[in-house]
């Protein structure tokens, strides 16, 4: 099988590699859930998926990917269906290792806007809203964002903070009352981004094969620093792509 792949496939593979075995992951639908399902199948068999519809430990069936977080497909072979509020409360209690989610608009401190462009009550563009994204960003022990890398998405300051990451840097997350967590990494179609430990500003940690620091900077609406060591990610392997494509044969999320 060819290892050529499209942007959504690259993103899903790179995201799946972030997840470790024997952990719990709160996964949003779409590419994050697809990536979590791939990780579980390939290298993290004891990864426990938590889905906001109130689902713990499902086994997603290849070809029957859920469209929403609370339909029968999402809960296939689940170990527990605690209900929505209680699923989130596991995270508030500190039991969820990783929050895994997408984002419409993201800023240099990792904050995400999925609410509105323009004034909240008179929006130019109204987006669907937070869903559980705010809760995942507030309550998981670590958050990994999975998103296409486009200049219009990577803005200096989001117009509306739907999901808080480091807020304005400088300890404002902790000062707001968020006791733990925060965005550790942003996986994009061009590379892997992290955050400066001091300033909490986003920086480049790795580039995907064929991309450069320059292409990443050209597609980002704010200044991006560099991590002390810059890596190049290994391209998707044939078996990763094969498993991924089998999960979404209708190409609902892989395009």
């Amino acid at each position, binding site marked *: 099988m060819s290892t050529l792949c499209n942007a959504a496939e690259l993103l899903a593979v790179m995201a799946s590699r972030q997840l470790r075995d024997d952990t719990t992951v709160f996964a949003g639908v779409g590419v994050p859930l697809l990536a979590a399902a791939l990780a579980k199948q390939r290298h993290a068999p004891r990864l426990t998926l938590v889905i*906001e519809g109130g689902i713990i430990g499902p086994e997603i069936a290849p070809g029957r990917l859920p*469209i929403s977080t609370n339909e029968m497909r999402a809960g296939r072979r689940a170990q527990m269906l605690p209900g929505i509020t209680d699923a989130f409360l596991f995270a508030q209690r500190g039991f969820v290792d990783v929050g895994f989610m997408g984002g419409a608009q993201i800023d240099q401190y990792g904050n995400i806007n999925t609410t509105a462009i323009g004034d909240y009550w008179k929006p130019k563009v*109204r987006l669907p809203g*937070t869903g559980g994204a705010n809760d995942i960003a507030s309550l998981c022990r670590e958050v990994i964002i999975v998103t296409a890398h486009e200049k219009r998405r990577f803005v200096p300051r989001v117009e509306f903070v739907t999901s808080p990451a480091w807020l304005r840097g400088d300890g404002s997350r902790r000062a707001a009352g968020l006791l733990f967590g925060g965005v550790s990494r942003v996986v994009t179609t061009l590379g892997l981004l992290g955050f400066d430990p001091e300033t909490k500003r986003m920086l480049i940690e790795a580039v995907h094969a064929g991309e450069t620091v320059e292409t990443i900077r050209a597609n980002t609406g704010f200044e991006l620093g560099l991590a002390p060591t810059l890596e190049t990610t290994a391209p998707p392997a044939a078996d990763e792509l094969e498993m991924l494509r089998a999960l979404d044969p209708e190409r609902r999320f892989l395009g």
Partner: protein
Amino acid sequence: MKDGDYVAVGGCLFSRTPLALVRELLRQRRRGLTLARNLTCTEGEFLMVAGAVERIVTAWMSIGLPWGVSKVMRHYVESGRVALEEWSHLALGLRFRAGAMGVPFLPALTMLGSDLMTVGGMKTLQDPYTGETLAAVPALFPDVAVLHVHRADMFGNCQIDGYPHMDADIARAATTVLVTTEEIVTDDATRRHPDRTVIPGFLVDALVHVPFGAFPHECYGLYEADFDHFGEYTAAIDAAGPTAVADYLERYAYGPPTFADYLDLFGGERLARQTRRARELTASA
């Protein structure tokens, strides 16, 4: 239900939505409603286009990722005709839970530091023990809850299979509780599995037997959501805008005099297919 009521809708997105009750609410031409639902789907679009709602209190509104951002929601919210009051998913769940517990608010660690705090006016408080900042999530006490369940008995004791969603909390928080059920069971049947009862009969004001009462949304284990129907519905909106929903309401809500006539529009074959698909997904593995 009266004009101006604050209505909480059970289920979540396209799961166990009380669509038979929503259809009746449309047929009664209610006005000025506030709708509260954690994730809002087609029922929110119907109520917007029908002119029944002034405000929707929710964490998210659209149908689902493959169908994009709701064009109907954008049209009504961006033009200022309907207010969309956004809370995080957990915060809305805790609002119902605080209502269910009969307390004015619950302390929580969510929504803090975000701009969602200002939308619904959520306040913070200082933990009297540690001094930490906490969110004070305000209780929600809806006038009316509309719910759809799997089975209920003549006393109104309700059992739900699969996803509990927020229905049990909503039923406790609301003043009036209206329920439709897939099946009416005997008193003995309830008593054989009392651990399955999630809403006691003394909370329920009215109960109606409506098989397929959530269709074309799903009912766990009984029928899968009809994604083909959603595709046709959104394609019509893509072609004609929100007026396509007005046509849809004529055909599905105002036209058919009974719920059986409504189901006939989908046809027995479609219902049987969706029933089969639900069994495949929930059969013990």
